[in-house]
């Protein structure tokens, strides 16, 4: 009996490690941009290409940058939640329309609602690269000094909004 104890213990340790591994999302890559200034950009706005949106305009406010596209399926999934969130007027939500067609993006927002305070158009994805975007949707929390404090990859869920994003926003707004 005793001779089975050691392999059994080793197996138990292995199972614990594998179980912990299963709870990790391999798509969740830690962003090196956290704690760093949000990369500056100036891009035309979706609804009025003659006007620009610039990161510098947001100085002094806590804001969310939500990277989305009309072709992105997961964006559709998180969209109702964003629309609900926008109604609370907690913080400005800036949209970054990533590698999208302007007409498609406009149509998408008309149909599903527009939660964004302003939308910048990143048609060639160059700004997305500066933000380390690799899977839309992605959401950044940026503080009053323009520092990125959090990045959420993938669709925002009610849980991640309530447990991670909102407490941080509340903290930063004080």
């Amino acid at each position, binding site marked *: 009996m005793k001779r089975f104890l050691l392999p059994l213990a080793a197996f138990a340790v292995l199972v614990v490690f594998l179980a912990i591994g299963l709870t990790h999302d*391999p*798509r969740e*890559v*830690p*962003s*090196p*941009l956290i704690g760093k200034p949000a990369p500056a950009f100036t891009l035309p706005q979706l609804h009025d290409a003659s006007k620009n949106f610039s990161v510098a305009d947001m100085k002094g406010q806590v804001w969310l940058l939500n990277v989305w596209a009309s072709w992105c399926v997961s964006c559709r999934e998180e969209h109702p939640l964003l629309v609900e969130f926008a109604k609370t007027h907690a913080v400005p939500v800036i949209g970054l329309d990533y*590698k999208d067609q302007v007409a498609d993006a406009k149509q998408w927002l008309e149909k599903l609602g527009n939660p964004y305070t302003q939308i910048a158009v990143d048609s*060639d*994805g*160059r700004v997305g*690269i*500066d*933000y*380390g*975007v*690799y*899977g839309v949707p992605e959401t950044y929390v940026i503080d009053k000094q323009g520092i990125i404090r959090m990045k959420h990859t993938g669709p925002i869920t009610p849980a991640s909004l309530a447990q991670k994003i909102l407490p941080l926003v509340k903290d930063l707004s004080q």
Partner: protein
Amino acid sequence: MKRWLVCLFIVLAARMAFAAEAPLLAADETVEKRLVAISEELRCLVCQNESLAGSRADLANDLRREIRKMIAEGKTDQEILDFMVARYGDFVLYRPPVKPTTWLLWGGPFLLMGGGLITLIWLLRRRRQLVATSGLSDEQRTLAASLLDKTDQ
């Protein structure tokens, strides 16, 4: 005769077209070679088991375009890798740097091998001790000798 002339013309024209293309290809080749060399060291973040060189993902195309641009601007390989790491973190490197957060990653295999070797040596020593201590008593020895004698006859 006329047909021959036409043939000659076509062959010459083809050669000229080829000649015009050749220098362009050669100029691009060094850039493309460097692009492949750099992007083979980088992970595609969309399909994480593929390198940036092999991936057909949209983002990989964009990143290769950026790298091509940086090569044209005369940036060094290290500058290009730094550009990628600044945006996507050490995870994009297939050979991550040795630093406190990656010590376990680099040292882990050696730790495991060391643990295995120590266990093996311990087991071998114990076995040798078992063999050494399990000698026969005098009584058993004489019995064994007499049995052997019998079989020899």
